[in-house]
């Protein structure tokens, strides 16, 4: 017997389904006298009940999380466990290298299919001298000093180097790993570099006197602000403070160092 059900969510679905199975088996036995041995339940939809509970008071954003190596924030909290977790998170998630692999696989596939075609054709026509026939009129016939051979060999060297680099470098530069508030080895969270830059730009623009900002997030964060009115010294101090706070508020596993420059249009 098989049931297809829609269940409320969030709930312990397995417990509900087990109860359902028991109930159905029992009622069926009472009403018809049939003994059902197996009841398969297929949950085809979950209906989310809008939870009335307000979102839990998340993290206190006015207080930056404790980070190692951010200088002043060491005072804020002596949360030693959080520091230990941070050191275990990598600086980058290693990329799966799907696109280089797909390109290489396509190249190998096309090359071997072409060779199969040539070998089959040559073997049919020249059963004895097929090796020579298969590779006739190709690069293999030209002397090594030929310009074409040199170009193709150079391309092979460059492609090979690119593949080796793709295999050895981590990649995934555009995602900054985030540190989850609760430790969870099965969870990976990352923030796009562009998103981090936008958040910092908005923070910088909240400083009075800053009229335009350019933010660059690379190995370190560079902020170039153009100021309008006000005391440049004060603006710079305030800007640095606001940006540091914003950066720490992102919750990055390894917050990059930050430099801020201000400039007044002449």
């Amino acid at each position, binding site marked *: 017997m098989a049931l297809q059900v829609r269940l409320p969510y969030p709930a*312990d*679905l*397995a417990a509900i389904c*087990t109860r359902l*199975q*028991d109930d159905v*088996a029992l009622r069926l036995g009472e009403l018809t006298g049939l003994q059902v041995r*197996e*009841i*398969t*339940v*297929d*949950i085809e*939809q*979950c209906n*989310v009940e809008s939870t009335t509970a307000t*979102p*839990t008071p*998340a993290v206190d954003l006015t207080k930056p999380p404790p980070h190692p190596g951010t200088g002043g924030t060491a005072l804020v909290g002596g949360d030693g466990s959080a520091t230990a977790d941070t050191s275990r998170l990598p600086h980058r998630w290693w990329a*799966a*290298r799907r696109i280089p*692999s*797909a390109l*290489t*696989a*396509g190249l*190998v*596939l096309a090359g071997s299919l072409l060779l*199969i075609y040539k*070998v*089959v054709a040559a*073997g049919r026509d020249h059963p004895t*001298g097929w*090796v*020579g026939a298969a*590779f006739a009129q190709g690069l*293999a016939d030209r*002397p090594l*000093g*030929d310009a074409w051979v*040199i170009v193709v*060999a150079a391309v*092979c*060297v460059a492609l*090979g180097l690119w593949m*080796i680099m*793709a*295999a050895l470098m981590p990649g995934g530069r555009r*995602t900054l790993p*985030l540190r989850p*508030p609760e430790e969870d080895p*099965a*969870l*990976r*969270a*990352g923030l*796009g570099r*562009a998103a981090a830059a936008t958040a910092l730009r*908005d923070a910088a623009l909240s400083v009075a006197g800053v009229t335009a900002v350019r933010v660059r997030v690379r190995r370190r964060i560079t902020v170039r602000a153009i100021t309008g009115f006000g005391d440049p010294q004060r603006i710079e101090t305030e800007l640095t403070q606001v940006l540091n706070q914003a950066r720490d508020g*992102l919750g990055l596993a390894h917050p990059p160092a930050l430099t801020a420059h201000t400039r007044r249009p002449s």
Partner: protein
Amino acid sequence: MRAQSAVNRALLASIGTVLFGAGLLALAGAWDLYRRWDLPRPTRWLPTTPHGALNRAVRHGGFSTWAWAWPVTLTALTLVSLLALVWLLRQLPSATTRKTPLGGTVLRGRIMMRGTALAQAIQEEILDVSGVQRARVRVAGSDSHPSLYITVALDATGSPREVLHALQSGPIDHARMATGWTHLPVDIRFSNSPHRARRTH
């Protein structure tokens, strides 16, 4: 996914090394480095002078006189192309999990969950979190080992740290509780919806 990365990287490294080595050998022959630097010749059938061609060298080698050379070559090539095809297909994005058994003990029959149903429920919960503008949820992977892929676009007020905390204690916790997969792997990517810079006074 981590296993896939390792396989891809190992294959890329080995094919790259072969290409790199073959290119270097050809260039060494083309520039006559063997004679100039007095290097030992690698094998008999590889041409090592600018005037030597691969074909001539192979034809004079012993390979083509061997009776089994043709079938062996074809078999090897077929094998290589099949492996390349499998490798290529493995790079396609992993399919959405269709039906997967819920965790817990099976007493009276299996309890199956549809991947799309779970994904939709999680997505609805995520959209309720403040600071989230858009969310995309996929339950992907094999039926026995599903994982959760979440992409969240934050709005102008959303902080990744705050939203991550809300997700962890809300939708992700609920998903793990509801399905009984206590170690369901989760991958979350935050982006933000592009918005214009605006002054806040």
